[in-house]
Structures are given as structure tokens and as C-alpha cells.
């Protein structure tokens, strides 16, 4: 085994070993031990990832790929898939984020889960998730990716339902898995189309076999495959119309929400599209769908976020919305920007989730922000780091979120695949984001305390605050590896857009309009000022004049009602899709199985019995009647043979 294979093996194996150790000892209550094992595994994995990326950096840009094949997994006919892994510019970012943020969240969990009944089980699942997520991003072919893809879904299922004694939580896990499965079915169909069209499922082969001309229309194999894969992405990355599972997924432990439902798993869809950028750019119609769904989701989820009272639900809808941005970016061909936002979002959203975890921990599992307020004083570190996250997400200039979001907005305007309308939707969504995040900050940390008397919030232990601090720093500076050119030009030393350079060889491109810096700056200005105004409004509503929101809500009337009820989407799904299916199935069972097929067989037996009854009446024991039958038999025979 060469060195790289060994690194792959350690990278993937460490969490797997961790999973087995904790998994076999799942009844252990020792959160420190199991937590250390799991965190150690994650850190080892991170080190291996870093070493691999170091190897990668040393390679020339156009040859930045390290492959390693372990064994032949399935070979049937001309379909042959290896358990093979690939790290390149795209997956390098992913493995660093996954293992890096993952390690921090593992560490955070040690404190967070200290008093839980089944810490070993929790850490086992967490390690298993890490393993699957790495499979997903490292797979050198669609099938290995799919293994990880479903694997993370499974872990997400297990972790959302971790506190399974609460039926709502178990239901949330199930909902997540099944919704994901809908997407997975699409993913599978995408794989089928690609394999049957191009004869391979390996990324590199696939991309090399693609034609050079973009496909027109909707029914070409590339377009269909792209759309099918995108269905997969909407499931995993919680986009319209399959986003419904993600808010419910907040039922899981908060670090899980941070890791799986903010930083890593939910971005898998984006990663997949970026990974297959070469394919998607050949299907402009599919790209358009991706962009529209992304933009719409970004706005839609952001509006729902405006009215939520659960701290995690706000963050969940925010995540859906931010993922929408990433798809918007991918859809307009700004794959680099999508990756960039994926990364920065991983930092600041993980930070905020962990921060919310810290708050919830301090509030004794209270998640309603109406019962918080003024926590700034009791939880200074949490507040400080959360503050950074807030600045990042609302796009405060020069923080990570600002860099990536504005690049997306600019590209959605300037790309040949973009449209000003997409930009506009993005900006409005950004304003909403700014409003609801400020509202969250205000209600949680600022203003007067509404904390019930019996609760005594306190700052969390170091295992929890250290990850917060690290993520806070990353949220601050993480964006600097991708400084937009217009801004870079103003900074002394003209720092380049490192990220764009790093990714460029691995990505397909669509032509970008070479817009003027002035245009770019003015668009940037518009979005920043809109966000600032929204933030000010929120501050005014929830800190300065807390009585105003009610009045505004009343003013919006029905619209407010719709938004605060999440547009009744869950209810509509339940009433229009799930219930009819269940009722229909019951009807099938009752009418087809029992009522028709069985009845048909009963009918056959009834016929037999009926005929038997008839025969019985013939058989009345009277000799003369029997003699009559004989005579009749004879007569009929004679008639038939001789006369008839």
C-alpha cells in the first residue's frame, strides 16, 4: 500500500474504528471516554486529510488528483465499480471542512452530551457519519458517492431520532430519511442515465466522455440526468420542494444540527453539482432549473425564518435559505462561488448552531427565544462568537459571509446563465436574512431578560467554548481566501482570489460578463445597505420598541399568518400527498386484496359449494329418482348419438 492509499485508509478508517469501538460498547455511560475516542478519531482523520491536501498542493495545478483504489466492488457485465477514492481540488476543501469542523463539533459534543444517557452511542453515530460523509466526498465514482450519500442519510436518521423516546423526534428522523429517499431515487435514475449513455460512472471518465456541445431542449440524456441528479440534491440539501425535513431535523442533538444539518451533509447536493459541473454546464435548461429552485428556496425559507420562535428552527430555515444561495450560484455557473459559500457557511452556521447549543444547554433545553433575552451578560463567550457569526451571515463587509454571498449575487447578475431577476431575489432574501438573524440576536442575547426565574443560565464549559472560538475566528477570516477581485484590487498587496485559482482547473466554466467594477460595487452597495436597513429594523422592533412587531404583524394580516405557519407546507403535504397515499393503500388492501382477489377465489369456492348443494338435492336417496337418472342418461345418450 503506497503512502497515499495509507492516508486514504487512515482518513476513512479512523472514524470507522471509532464507530466500532463506541458502537460495540454502546451502553457505556462514560461520555468522557467515548467522547475522547470519537474526537481522537476525528482529529486523526483531520490530520490525514491535511496531509493528503498537502500532497495535493505539491502537484501541478492541472494534475491535482490523487486516486486510490481498494477493491472491485461490483462487476456485472460492462458495469464495473471499484471501491476507489479521489481527492482533488474540490474534495480537498470538503475533507478539510468535514474533518476540521467535524473535529470541533466532536469536541463540543463532549461537553454537550456529558449528562446524556447514551453518549457512546451518540459518538458512535457521529463517527459513522464522518466516515460516510468522507465516502461521499471522496468517492471517485457516482456509486461510491451514492454509498456515502445514503450513509449520511442513515446517520442523520439515527441522530435526529437519537432521543427516540419522544415520538416527535423519532418521526422527524423518519421524515428526514424518507424525504431524502425521494431525492435518492432521483439520484439513482441519474446514475442509470449517465451509465447507460456514457458507459461509466467514474467521475473522471465521465467528464472526459461528455460531448463538447451543450444540449438543447429538455429530453436529452444530459439534461435528464442533470435534472434527476438535481432531484437527489434537493432531497439531501433541503431545497424546494423537499426541504421540509430539515426544520424537523432540529429534533436531534444540537451539535448534530451543526455538523450534519448545517455544515456538511446538507451541502452534499451542492458538492455533487460542483463535482459534476462539467455535466451541468452542458445542460443549460437544467442549470436554469437549479438556479431558479435555489433562488426561490433562498427567499422562501428566509421569509419563514422571519417569524419563527424556536432558536434552532430559525437557524434551520436560515440553512435552507443559505443552501438556496449555493444552488443559485451553481445554477448560474459560479461553481467556485458555490463552493466558497459552502465553506464559509460551514464555519458561521456551525458556529451559530453550536452557539445555540450552548444557549440551549444553559437554558436547560429551552429553545423558545421568547423566553430568553439578555443572555449577553451570562454567556459572554457564546454571545461574542455568535455575534461574529451574525455579522458573517448578514454580510457585514469583509467577513466570510459577505465575501461568498456577494460573489454569488454578483455572478447571478453577471453570468451568462444568470439574470437580474435572480440577483434581485437573492438581494431580497439577503435582506430577510439580515432581519431574522438580527431578530434572533436581539431576542436571545440583547434587551431585557425574559428568562424564567427557575432557570439560571451560565457560560458553557471549555470543551464547548473552544470550538466556538475557533469557528468564530474562521468566520471572521475564512473568507479571505476568496476575496473578490474588485475588493482585492483595493487592498494593499492585491491579494488574489486563492480559492478561485485553486478550484479553476477542476471546474467547468460558463462565460461571465466582464462587468465594470462600478457596477459590481453598486450592486454590492445595494445589498449591503438593504441588509443594514433590515438589521436596523429588526433591532428597532425587538430591542428598542418591543411592542411594534405585533402591530406590524397585524398590519400584514393574512400574509403574516401564512408565513408564521410556514405557508402550511407540511399540512398541505400531509393532507394532499401522505394522507391520500395512506388512505389509498388502505383502500387497495381492502378492495383489491380482500375485496377482489380473495373474493374471486371465494367466489370460485362458492361456485363449488353451490354446485355441491345442487347435487345434494339431486341425491335425495330415493331409488325411483335414481332410476330416472339412469333412464334419462340412456335417453339423452341415444338422442345425442342417433338423433341429434
Amino acid at each position, binding site marked *: 500500500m503506497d503512502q497515499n492509499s495509507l492516508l486514504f485508509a487512515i482518513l476513512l478508517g479512523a472514524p470507522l474504528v471509532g464507530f466500532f469501538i463506541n458502537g460495540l460498547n454502546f451502553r457505556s455511560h462514560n461520555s468522557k471516554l467515548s467522547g475522547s475516542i470519537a474526537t481522537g478519531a476525528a482529529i486523526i482523520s483531520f490530520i490525514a486529510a491535511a496531509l493528503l491536501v498537502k500532497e495535493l498542493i505539491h502537484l501541478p495545478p492541472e494534475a491535482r488528483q490523487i486516486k486510490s483504489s481498494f477493491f472491485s466492488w461490483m462487476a456485472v457485465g460492462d458495469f464495473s465499480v471499484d471501491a476507489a477514492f479521489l481527492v482533488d481540488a474540490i474534495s480537498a476543501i470538503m475533507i478539510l471542512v468535514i474533518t476540521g469542523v467535524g473535529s470541533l463539533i466532536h469536541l463540543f459534543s463532549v461537553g454537550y452530551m456529558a449528562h446524556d444517557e447514551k453518549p457512546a452511542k451518540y459518538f458512535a453515530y457521529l463517527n459513522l457519519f464522518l466516515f460516510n460523509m468522507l465516502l461521499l466526498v471522496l468517492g471517485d465514482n457516482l456509486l461510491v458517492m451514492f454509498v456515502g450519500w445514503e450513509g449520511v442519510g442513515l446517520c442523520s436518521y439515527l441522530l435526529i431520532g437519537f432521543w427516540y423516546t419522544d415520538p416527535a423526534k423519532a418521526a422527524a428522523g423518519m421524515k428526514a430519511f424518507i424525504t431524502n429517499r425521494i431525492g435518492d431515487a432521483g439520484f439513482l435514475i441519474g446514475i442509470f442515465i449517465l451509465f447507460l449513455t456514457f458507459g461509466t460512472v467514474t467521475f473522471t471518465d465521465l467528464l472526459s466522455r461528455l460531448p463538447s456541445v451543450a444540449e438543447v431542449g429538455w429530453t436529452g440524456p444530459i439534461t435528464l440526468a442533470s435534472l434527476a441528479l438535481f432531484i437527489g440534491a434537493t432531497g439531501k440539501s433541503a431545497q424546494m420542494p423537499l426541504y421540509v425535513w430539515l426544520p424537523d431535523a432540529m429534533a436531534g442533538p444540537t451539535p448534530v444540527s451543526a455538523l450534519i444539518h448545517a455544515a456538511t451533509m446538507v451541502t452534499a447536493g451542492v458538492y455533487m453539482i460542483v463535482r459534476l459541473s462539467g455535466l451541468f454546464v452542458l445542460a443549460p435548461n437544467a442549470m436554469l432549473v437549479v438556479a431558479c429552485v435555489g433562488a426561490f428556496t433562498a427567499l422562501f425559507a428566509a421569509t419563514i425564518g422571519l417569524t419563527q420562535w424556536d432558536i434552532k428552527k430559525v437557524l434551520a430555515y436560515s440553512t435552507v435559505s443559505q443552501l438556496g444561495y449555493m444552488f443559485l450560484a451553481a445554477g448560474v455557473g459560479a461553481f467556485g462561488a458555490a463552493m466558497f459559500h459552502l465553506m464559509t457557511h460551514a464555519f458561521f452556521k456551525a458556529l451559530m448552531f453550536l452557539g445555540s447549543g450552548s444557549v440551549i444547554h444553559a437554558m436547560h433545553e429551552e429553545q423558545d427565544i421568547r423566553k430568553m433575552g439578555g443572555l449577553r451578560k451570562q454567556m459572554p463567550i457564546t454571545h461574542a462568537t455568535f455575534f461574529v457569526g451574525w455579522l458573517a451571515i448578514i454580510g457585514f463587509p469583509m467577513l466570510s459571509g459577505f465575501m461568498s454571498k456577494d460573489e454569488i449575487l454578483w455572478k447571478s447578475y453577471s453570468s451568462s446563465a444568470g439574470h437580474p431577476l435572480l440577483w434581485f431575489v437573492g438581494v431580497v432574501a439577503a435582506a430577510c436574512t439580515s432581519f431574522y438573524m438580527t431578530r434572533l440576536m436581539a431576542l436571545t442575547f440583547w434587551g431585557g431578560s425574559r428568562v424564567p426565574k427557575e432557570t439560571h443560565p451560565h457560560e458553557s464549559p471549555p470543551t464547548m467554548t473552544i470550538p466556538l472560538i475557533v469557528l468564530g475566528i474562521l468566520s471572521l477570516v475564512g473568507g479571505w481566501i476568496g476575496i473578490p477581485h474588485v475588493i482585492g484590487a483595493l487592498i494593499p498587496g492585491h491579494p488574489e482570489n486563492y480559492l478561485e485559482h485553486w478550484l479553476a482547473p477542476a471546474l467547468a466554466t460558463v462565460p461571465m460578463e466582464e462587468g465594470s467594477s462600478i457596477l459590481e460595487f453598486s450592486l454590492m452597495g445595494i445589498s449591503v445597505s438593504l441588509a443594514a436597513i433590515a438589521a436596523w429594523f429588526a433591532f428597532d422592533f425587538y430591542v428598542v420598541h418591543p411592542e411594534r412587531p405585533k402591530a406590524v404583524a397585524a398590519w400584514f394580516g393574512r400574509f403574516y399568518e401564512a408565513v408564521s405557519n410556514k405557508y402550511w407546507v407540511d399540512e398541505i403535504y400531509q393532507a394532499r400527498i401522505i394522507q391520500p397515499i395512506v388512505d389509498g393503500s388502505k383502500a387497495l388492501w381492502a378492495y383489491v386484496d380482500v375485496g377482489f382477489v380473495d373474493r374471486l377465489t371465494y367466489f370460485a369456492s362458492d361456485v363449488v359449494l353451490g354446485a355441491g348443494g345442487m347435487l345434494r338435492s339431486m*341425491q335425495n336417496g330415493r*331409488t325411483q329418482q*335414481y*332410476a330416472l*337418472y*339412469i333412464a334419462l342418461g*340412456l335417453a339423452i*345418450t341415444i338422442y345425442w*348419438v*342417433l338423433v341429434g
Partner: protein
Amino acid sequence: MEISFSFRWVDVLLLMPVVVLAVSSMVPLLIKVMSGGREPNSFATMCYGLAGVIAAAGWLISMEGTRRVAFDGALVFDGLSTLIGLAIVFAAGVALVFSRENFATNTDQFSEHVFLMLNAAAGMLLVSWANDLIFFFIGIELMSLCLYVLIAISGESRLSKEAAFKYFLLGSFASAILLYGVAFVFGTAGSTNLQVIAEQSQDLISSNRLFLLGLIFLVVGIAFKVSIFPLHAWTPDVYQGAPTPVTGFMATGAKAATFVLFLRLVMTSAFAADQANRLIEIIQWMAALTILAGNIAAVMQTSVKRMLAYSSVAHSGYIMIGLIVASIGGEQLGGSSSVIFYLVAYTLMTIGAFGVLSLLEKDEDSQIHVEDLRGLAKRSPWMALCLTVLLLSLAGIPPMVGFFGKFFIFSAAVKAGLYWLAVWGVIGSVVSVYYYLRPIMQMYMRDEVGAEVCGDRYLSIGAVSVAAIAVVVVGLFSSPLYQAVLNALRGPT
């Protein structure tokens, strides 16, 4: 035209089995008379009877591989005669054993019972050898008369008297029809010898409608004896009324013998002629209706004996399929071989099944209902297993011999292009599974107490075991039997 048989002593030698049976049947009666009408030891009586049966069987076996005729061809001793003859004496022997250990038959008239049974067997042998309508009629009357009385003399059961009377009345009616048939055929063909009839049947059937009418009468008369719809109506009543060993004997021996003659009759080329088409047609309908009526009625029965009676009706229907094939295609299509094979298989399984019933009867009036079998597997596991095997065989489940019987019948039908009859038979088999499974269900899957096997009826148990084991063994290795059937039909080579 005259009917005459030249008599040769050597022919008597060929007739020895019948003679032996007749003689041995006298022995117990003589003893009884000499001891002043006191019923002798029933075991000894049975032994005399069995001795006759065994001697007859031995004689039959010794004649194997030859083809001879006696009385100017009125009786024929070919492989078929031997094979079916053996089946008949087997049935007789087994029935004797059952009779001795059954309350309804082992009465103070057991000697008479044995006498009648052996003579009935002799009649059956005659029927199965007959190559002449006169001999056939004599044989069938001998057999029937003995059976009427056999049914009537048993115990005090009112049911059996009624059955005997019913059988007698209807049987006489059928005999009359038969006799008409014989007369018409003789009147037109000028001979009662099947061989002679066969030679001119092609001309006769096209020229003389009376000949055809004679055939119809013959067919209907025979159909009565083998319980073909709609002439089967007597069967359940009589089978149920008769003492079980007698029923078993009737259901097997009488049926086998009569069917053999039926086979000999249809093998005369008369039935292959175009003019007989419509006759064949209606026989097909009869076969189909027999299968249907037998199986459907059996489903409704709660009395096991009555159920077996109807099942025997259904089996007649299956055999008829083979017969039809034989009638239209001679031997090439395997119709005749399937009939013979089925008859042997049917004899084994049916006599065994009635044997188990006989074992379960506590007194002469006892009627075994399906419910009575509850939990039999617990009380008499071996008998339950035997009955299971026999019933599964009757249902035609492999690897029992009944499956092969059906297999040959259906293959014959398929080969002859009579797909609809084959499929019809198949559907009938599915229905039959339902009622054959019911007793098995009761025996194994219910635990309540029901009928019981008396412990000391070892001989009957042994006889049933023989039948059951034979059903399995002959099933697994059906080739020798089938080979024997083929040899019997082809004659010595």
C-alpha cells in the same frame, strides 16, 4: 348363428383361479353346516378364504407372460387379465382381513360373508377376462348378486339393508340395459365375441344403427357399474350403507374388473369409426361431469365414507379420460396403459383408505365423520400417517402413486389432443385437494378426542400399512409397474 362354446379340459386349467376361489369359498360354509350351523372360528374362516385368494394369486402369477384364450376365445388370459386379476384378488384378500376385524362383518354369518366375497371375486375375475359379452354378463351378474347379498347380510344396520335393496333394484335395471345392449350387438354382429365384433365393427357401425344402439346400451350399462354421471347416484348411498370392508372391495375390485371390460370393449375398433364420434363426444361430457360431480359433491360431505364414495366417482371420471383416449387411438396414445396403471394405483389407495375407516369403526352402525378423526395422529400416529399418505395419493400429490396415475391419464389426454379434458381434470384435482386435506387437517392439526383404532386389529393394520407403503414405493419406483402394464397390453414379445 348360434352361440356355442366348445369345451376343452385344458381351458379349465386356465380357469383355475376362479375354481380355487369357488372351492375355498365353500370350505367355511361346509364346516359351518357340519358343525350344526354354529359359526366357526372367524380366524380360521378368514384363513380358508385367504388360502383361496393366495392360491388364485399364485396361479395368476404363474400364467404371466402368456396369452391364451379359453372356450373359443370367450375368455382371454393375457397380461391384462393377470395384472387386473392380481389387483382383484389383492383387494379381495385385504377386504377379507378387514372384514374379520370389523364389527359389521364379523358376525355370526361370517362364513357366508367369506363365501360371498370370494364368489364376488370370482365374478370379477370372469369379468376382467371376458372377451365375450355373454361371459361378461355372467361375470357381472355373479359379482353383483354376491355384492347385493354381502351388503344385505351384514349386522343389523338398517342402512345396509336399504343400500342393498337400492343397489339391487338399480343394478337390475342396469343389468337389463346391459342385456339389451348384448342382444342388439349380437343381433347385428352375429356374435358376442369381442374379437369377431371388432373385425366387422367398421362395416356394422356405418351400416347398422342398431349396432350403434347396442353399443350405447352397453356403454350406459357399464357406466352404471363404474359410477359415471348421471348413473352414479346410487354410489354414495350404497357405499355408505355397505359395511366398510365391502365398500372397499366394491370400490376397487368391481370397478377394476368392469373398467377392464370397458377397455376391451372400446378397443374394438368400433369406437374409432366416424359414426361413433358422437358417442365418444357424449362419453367425454360424461367423464367431465363425473369429475365435476364427484369432486364437488365430495367437498360437501362430512361422512368420510360418503366423501370417499364421491371421490371414487371422481376417479372413475379420470379413468374415463384414459378410456376415451384408448377408444379413439388404440394403444399408441397410451390411453389403455394409463387406464390400467390408474386402476392398479386406485386399488391400492382406495382399499387402504377404506381399511383405515374400517379400523376406526367401533360398532356395526358407526359412521366415521371427518370430525371424528380429530387428533388421530396423536392416538395412532402410524395409522394417521398411512391415511395421510393414502389421501395425498388420492389427491395426486407426488411422489405418491396417485400422482403418476394422474400423470399418465393427463399425458394420454394431452397426446390425444384432448387438452380440455386434461385441464378439466386438473381443475377437478384442485377441488379434490380441498376435501382430501380435510381429514389430514383433523388428524394432525386438531387435538380433541375422536375415533380410535382398536389395538388388537393387527392384521388390518398390517394390510393398511402394506397399501400405504406400496403407494409410496410404487410411486417412487413406478417404472416397473408401468413396464408391467405396457407388457400386459403389448402381450408377450
